[in-house]
């Protein structure tokens, strides 16, 4: 199997184009919210956010949480005693106000955000790196509350959110593949032309 410039270029172009098409069609998550255990007064809770370099988004510190309903007597009676219990009833949404300090650190260790405010509030963050962004939330209020955080990429801004690093790689593959392909085709044409010219001269002689 001869892997010359033409074939290598064609393979790179194929991979680059398929990657570009995939990046253009795969939807990027618009919003994501998470919360864990309540944070005590003066305590700091650290969230890890794994994200691709999607550009400008918003990190929000929320002020509402959902609480599971308590099981009724019917639910307890119907439970088999093993595994999880089915609880009838709707979840309860609780709203509260807390004073929170938010610090966001990028994967390379740079502090992107250091702000304080009453929940809910959000801050714009430019996500330019892929990896773990650490979100430190400190409860500066006067009661123990859960502090949910969210990440949002608003769809109405008209911005197309794509993974910048993969887009860059696919452009490089496509461009380098095209260059190699052209070089390979040009070399093949020149070689054929030389052979034809030499053959004609040999015929004459």
């Amino acid at each position, binding site marked *: *199997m*001869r892997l010359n410039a033409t*074939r290598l270029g*064609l*393979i790179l172009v*194929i*991979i680059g184009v*398929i*990657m570009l098409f*995939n990046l253009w069609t*795969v939807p*990027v*998550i618009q919003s*994501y*919210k*998470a919360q*864990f255990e309540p944070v005590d007064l003066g305590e700091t809770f*650290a*969230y*890890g*956010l*794994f*994200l*691709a370099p999607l550009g400008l988004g918003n990190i929000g510190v929320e002020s509402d949480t959902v609480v599971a309903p308590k099981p009724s007597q019917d639910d307890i009676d119907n439970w088999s005693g*093993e*595994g999880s219990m089915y609880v009838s009833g709707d979840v309860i949404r609780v709203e509260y106000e807390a004073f929170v300090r938010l610090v966001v650190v990028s*994967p390379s260790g740079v502090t992107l955000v250091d702000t304080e405010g009453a929940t809910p509030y959000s801050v714009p963050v430019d996500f330019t790196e*892929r*990896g*773990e962004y*650490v*979100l430190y939330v400190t409860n500066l209020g006067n009661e123990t509350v859960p502090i949910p*955080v969210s*990440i949002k990429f608003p769809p109405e801004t008209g911005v197309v959110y794509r*993974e910048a*690093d*993969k887009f860059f*790689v696919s452009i490089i593959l496509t461009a380098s593949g095209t260059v190699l392909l052209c070089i390979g085709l040009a070399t093949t044409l020149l070689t054929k032309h030389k052979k034809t010219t030499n053959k004609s001269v040999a015929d004459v002689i």
Partner: protein
Amino acid sequence: MSFRVGLALLKTEIGKVWGRPILEITVALMAVMTLMSVQPITEIVRHSEFLDIFRSAVMGSVSATVASLMLPWIIMCSVLMALSFARDYESGLMQSILSTPISRKMFFMVKFFAVVLPLVLLSWVLTTFFVGLTFYSSPWLVLQLSFYMLPVSFLSLMFCGGLGVLVALVVRRTIPAVLTSLLANFFIWYPTTIDTKRALMEGVGYANYLCLTPHDGALVFLDKLLGIVPKGIPLEIADALEYTLPASSFAVLLVFYVCILVIPMFVYFIRRFEICD
């Protein structure tokens, strides 16, 4: 001397089998299937648990990529193996080559591994590349976990190839051999698309034995090698074979499948196969 001859033959056979546009079509097919399985990841977790969750995400990505690569494997391996043997027999090339001092043993091994080895290598390169593009913050972890797919893909492709050779040596005609080999391999691959957990929970009788099929077994073996622990398994199906058998059992099973197909074909070809009609 024979090693050098074998290498030269292998090089020629690889050049013949993987000529344009076969390699390009294979790369395109594998790239499409791989990209469909590697999705963008956005997750908020506890910072203290991040490394464990990240490792799980990489393992899951490798497993999903191999599962999606299985269909291109099967298509290309069965088609190329059937073409390689049946076309050479039909065109008389096999008879010409075997009339030279090249042994049947070497001829069979060269033809067999000229299809299997490039497919294993291509699958590994594409898996590492596309999983690495998402998780390049830990390149060594990606490389380490992607190595686990090498034995799985090798055994799986040996089985596919063995079936392709069986069909080619029985049918001895190019197009019917290609179609039959493709259908046979596709039929054996199909159980991997069944959601085993759901089937087990619905009480489907054969669901417990799906993991013992060649390709499904290969995927379960890979998951166990990677250390993926299935979550949320209900108590009533926790004693299913897929969850209780260790990785070594699946390794032995895959080697068994390869041996019962490839070794008899090898012996048949070197001792009994009539190269003249």
